[in-house]
């Protein structure tokens, strides 16, 4: 699918905003991804909303600190598995 510049801008802002999360998550078809990318590049109304959602999702992803299982848990798991027959 090929959209002209006028068609990209003419895309309904409401539709773009409604699909922002799907877009950021990469969960749309290639055509929709392209259409929204094109719209965002040119629409001053939608861009701040997009920027906010992107920053927000980056902040949520950043909470995934390496949180190793305590050694005690690791030892208990291994002990259970050995008892069940695992050879480690």
């Amino acid at each position: 699918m090929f959209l002209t510049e006028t068609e990209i801008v003419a895309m309904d802002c409401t539709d773009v905003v409604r699909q922002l999360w799907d877009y950021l998550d990469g969960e749309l078809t290639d055509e929709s991804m392209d259409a929204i990318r094109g719209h965002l590049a040119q629409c001053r109304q939608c861009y701040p909303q997009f920027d906010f959602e992107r920053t927000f999702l980056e902040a949520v992803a950043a909470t995934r600190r390496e949180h190793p299982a305590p050694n005690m848990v690791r030892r208990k798991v291994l002990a259970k598995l050995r008892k069940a027959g695992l050879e480690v």
Partner: protein
Amino acid sequence: MDGTLTAGESHRIDSRRFEVEALPWLDDVYRFALSMTRDESDADDVVQETFLRAYRSWHTFEPGSECRKWLFTICRNVFLRLRERERRRVDYGGDDAQLEALASGQEIVGSIGEHTDILSHVDLAPALERAIGELPEVFRSAVVLVDVEGMAYNEAASVLGVPVGTIRSRLFRGRRLLQESLVMFARDAGLATRAACEV
């Protein structure tokens, strides 16, 4: 030698495969368990039970498929069983069906673009971690799997045993709740005016 393995040999190969493919995910499984239980001692129990079940059903694991997703699915089921037991003892609070209805009715349109500055102002990690912990469990598990663990919607759907559309609505509602918490946090911290908080 006719190429067939003795029982002992195939057992050793299975052990080795489990050690190499499943055990390295122990930290991830623990993190996922903790996000659901929010209690270290419960997470400890859930993780032990998860690996024990995984080992016992290792023959059902399809080589080459995603082991983390497989382990998370088992972990989720172990957690649900634990919660079911808890529920019988005390009324756990939180009506999943009611929350689900809330999620599906949620419209995503809303403008909070003006809050971009809040996100760049401070280190939000502690506030966000707390807010994630306080989300109702149905929303929390979707947010954790997709936003924190980086799973695609269909992978998260498979772990939670729900349709992709359900993941999408739970995720979107969970994210909105998190954003509301952050705006409140920013207001309490004096980072945003009351007017700007009325989203």
